[in-house]
C-alpha cells in the first residue's frame, strides 16, 4: 500500500527545491499532483466574460502544452530526489455550460493528461465528473483507448453537489451505480482501464456509510483520498483534526473496516490542503512530518491483521480490555500462546482463555514469536521489553476493531 500526499502548498512548481527538501525530511516519498487549469473560452467568446475595473479580463487559454510546461520541471526535480508522482488529478470543469467548444476542449485536455501521466511515470489519473446524470459512458469512453495504450488507469471519483447552498450527494455517490458504471466502462474498453477513487471528504459531507460503500466497490477501489472536514463544509483538513464533543467528525472506523474487508493494497492519498493553507510557511515542514505519521498510522491500522501474520506464533502483553478485544476479534484466527502482565496478582490466572504470565516468561520465547503490546502504555512497556532484551516487539491497537463489545471491563487496570 502506497501513501501519497496532495502537492498543493507542499511544493512550489516553479521553485521546487525547498519543498522537496522538506518532503524528504518528513519522510514523504510520493505525491498526488493536482493539475489546476483555468477554463477560458476562445477569443471570440471572451466578450461575454465579466470585466473587472473596466478592463477586459484577457487571459490566455490553457493548453495541454502550458500545463505540461508548468509541471514538468517540478516532476523532474522530484524524480531526481526519489519522490514519485503516484496519482495525477486532472482539472475539473463543469460541463453544464452549453458551449460548442467545451466538450471537445475538455476531452482534449483529459487525453493530454493521460499522456502527461505516462511521462510522469504515474499509474493513476483521477478524472472527476462534477454533474450527476451526465453521459458518463460517452465521456469516459473517449478516454479509454488512449489510457489503455499508455497503461494508465482512469479513476472516477465521488463528488458533492451544491443544492441551493446545501452540499448533497452529487456524481458517483451511490456505490451500486458506481459499480455498474465502472464494469460497463471496463467491458466496453475490453480491459481494466477504469477504477475508483473514494474521496473521504465527500463521503463525510454526504454522510455515506463508508464501510458499505467500500465493500460494494471491492477491487474496483484503487485510491482513497484521506481528508477531514466537519461534515458540512467541503474542506480538506488533516485526518483526525475535525472533532466535536471529543469525538471524530469523520467515519474513520468505517473506512478502516471497509479497507480491511476488501484487503485494500492500493493508494492512500492524504489531502490536508486547507490545514496547510492557514499554517505559516514556517510551520509547514512540521505539519509535513505529522501528515506523514498520520498517513502511516492509517496504513498500519488497515494492515493490522496482516501484521499479525508476520510471526509463526505470538504472545500478548496486557490482560485488560485491549487483550479482551484482541481475543474477541482475532483470538480464534491468531491464538496467542499466552498473555503477560505487570500486575503480579494476575499471574497464573486465566483471562479470556489465556494464561496470564509474569513478563519474565517472555525471555524464553522462540525467535519467530512476536510480542504484541495490548496496553495503552505502549512506550513504557516497549522500553521495559527492550531492557529485558526482548525482540520482535509489536503494537496491537483496539481503536478500530472489526466489532466491539457493548461494555468495557470495569476491573481494567490499563
Amino acid at each position, binding site marked *: 500500500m502506497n501513501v501519497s500526499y496532495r502537492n498543493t502548498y507542499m511544493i512550489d512548481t516553479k521553485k521546487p527545491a525547498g519543498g522537496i527538501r522538506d518532503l524528504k525530511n518528513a519522510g514523504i516519498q510520493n505525491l498526488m499532483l493536482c493539475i489546476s487549469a483555468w477554463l477560458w473560452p476562445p477569443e471570440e467568446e471572451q466578450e461575454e466574460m465579466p470585466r473587472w475595473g473596466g478592463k477586459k479580463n484577457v487571459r490566455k487559454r490553457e493548453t495541454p502544452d502550458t500545463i505540461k510546461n508548468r509541471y514538468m520541471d517540478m516532476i523532474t526535480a522530484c524524480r531526481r530526489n526519489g519522490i514519485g508522482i503516484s496519482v495525477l488529478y486532472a482539472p475539473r470543469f463543469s460541463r453544464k455550460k452549453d458551449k460548442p467548444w467545451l466538450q471537445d476542449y475538455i476531452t482534449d485536455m483529459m487525453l493530454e493528461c493521460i499522456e502527461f501521466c505516462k511521462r510522469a511515470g504515474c499509474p493513476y489519473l483521477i478524472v472527476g465528473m462534477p454533474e*450527476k446524470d451526465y453521459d458518463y459512458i460517452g465521456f469516459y469512453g473517449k478516454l479509454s483507448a488512449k489510457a489503455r495504450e499508455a497503461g494508465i488507469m482512469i479513476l472516477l471519483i465521488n463528488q*458533492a453537489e451544491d*443544492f*441551493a*447552498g*446545501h*452540499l*448533497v*450527494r452529487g456524481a458517483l*455517490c*451511490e456505490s*451500486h451505480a458506481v459499480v455498474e458504471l465502472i464494469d460497463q466502462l471496463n467491458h466496453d474498453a475490453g480491459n481494466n482501464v477504469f477504477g475508483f477513487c473514494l474521496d473521504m471528504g465527500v463521503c*463525510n*459531507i*454526504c*454522510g*455515506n*456509510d463508508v*464501510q*458499505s460503500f467500500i*465493500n460494494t466497490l471491492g477491487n474496483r477501489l484503487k485510491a482513497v483520498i484521506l481528508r477531514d472536514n*466537519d*461534515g*458540512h463544509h467541503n474542506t480538506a483538513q488533516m485526518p483526525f483534526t*475535525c*472533532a*466535536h*464533543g471529543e*469525538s*471524530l*467528525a*469523520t*467515519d474513520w*472506523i468505517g473506512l478502516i*473496516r471497509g479497507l480491511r*474487508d476488501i484487503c485494500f493494497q492500493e493508494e492512500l492519498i492524504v489531502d490536508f490542503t486547507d490545514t496547510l493553507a492557514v499554517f505559516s510557511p514556517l510551520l509547514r515542514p512540521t505539519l509535513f512530518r505529522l501528515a506523514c505519521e498520520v498517513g502511516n498510522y492509517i496504513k498500519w491500522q488497515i494492515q493490522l491483521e496482516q501484521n499479525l501474520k508476520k510471526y509463526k506464533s505470538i504472545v500478548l502483553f496486557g490482560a485488560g480490555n485491549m487483550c479482551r478485544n484482541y481475543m474477541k476479534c482475532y483470538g480464534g484466527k491468531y491464538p496467542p500462546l499466552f498473555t503477560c502482565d505487570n500486575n503480579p496478582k494476575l499471574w497464573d490466572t486465566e483471562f479470556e482463555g489465556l494464561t496470564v504470565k509474569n513478563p519474565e516468561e517472555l525471555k524464553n520465547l522462540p525467535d519467530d514469536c512476536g510480542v504484541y503490546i495490548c496496553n495503552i502504555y505502549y512506550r513504557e512497556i516497549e522500553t521495559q521489553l527492550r531492557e529485558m532484551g526482548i525482540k520482535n516487539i509489536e503494537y496491537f491497537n483496539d481503536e478500530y*476493531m*472489526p*466489532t*466491539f*463489545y*457493548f*461494555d468495557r471491563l470495569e476491573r481494567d487496570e490499563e
Partner: protein
Amino acid sequence: MEIGVQTKNVIKDSCPLEGFTMLKRAGFSCCDFSLDVYLKNFNVYQNRINDFFSAPLDELKEYFTPHKQAAQTADITISQMHMPYPNYVPGGTDELNEYLRCVVAPKSMEICAFLECPYIVVHGFKLSHYLGSEEAEWEKTSEFLDLIAPMAKKYGITICIENLYTGLGGHIVEGPCCDASKAAKRIDEFNERYGAQVLGFCFDTGHANLVGLDFENFITTLGPRLKVLHIHDNDGISDLHQIPFTFTRTRENTSSTDWDGFVKGLKGIGYKGVLSFETAPVLTAFPNVMKADVLRFIANIGRYFDGILS
C-alpha cells in the same frame, strides 16, 4: 390524495375528539398515530421505562377506544402509526431489551390492529459500530422483524422500515435503511418468505436531506415498496422536523431541500399513499393559539403536493 399529520402535540388523551376535529377542520383526512409518545425514546435510552405497555392488552384497547371513536367521529383515518423506539438499546440491560422486544413491540402491533391502522413504522437497530457492518446490523433488525411479522400477516398490517441517521462528531451520517437497493431486496425477501406484504418502506424526507440523499433516485429505487411518508424539512444539519420549504441557505433564498426531486420520485412510481407530515415540533414552536392556523398551512402544502402529483 389523502393528507395526514402526526397526532403528537394535537391529540390529547383527555379529549381526543377535540384534536381529531381540529385536524379535520385544518384539512387533513388522515393521521399518523404517535404511539411512540407513550414510551419516549429519551427515557428508553436512559433505561427509564414507564409501565404503560405493561398493562394487559384489554386495558390498552380500552385506553385507546376513545381515540378510535373520536377519529371515526371526526372522519379521520388512522393511516399509519409509529412504534415506540428504539427496539433495542446497545449496552442496555437484558431485562430492558427483553421488555422492548417481547412486550412493547407485540402490544404495539395489537394496538395498531385495534385502531385498524394498515401501516406501522419501526426503527431498525443501530448496531453497526458494535457488530462491525451494516449487514450484521440488518441481521439483528431482521430477527426483530421476524418476531412481529407473523402478527403483521395475521392482521394485514405492513411494517415499514424507515431511513434513519446516526450522529458522528457533530454532524449526521447514514443510519439503518439508507441504501434503497438493499432495502428493496430485503423487503422483497421478507414478503416472499411470508407470502404477504408484511414489510414496506417509510421514506423520511428530513432524514434523507440530512445525509444528502438523492430523493428522486431513492424513491424510484423503492418503487411500490414505498408505503408511507414522513414529510418534514430541516437545514441539512439537524433533524428539526419543520414545515417543507422553510429552509434556505443562500441569498437567492430558494429551498435547500430537493422538494422537486421528491415530487418527481413520487410521481414516477405512481405513489397513491397518504401525504403524511411528521411535523409535530412545529406545533410547539408556534404559539398554541396559532395551532389551527399552522395545521391548515401544513395541510395546504399537502394539497400543493397533491396538485402536482395529480
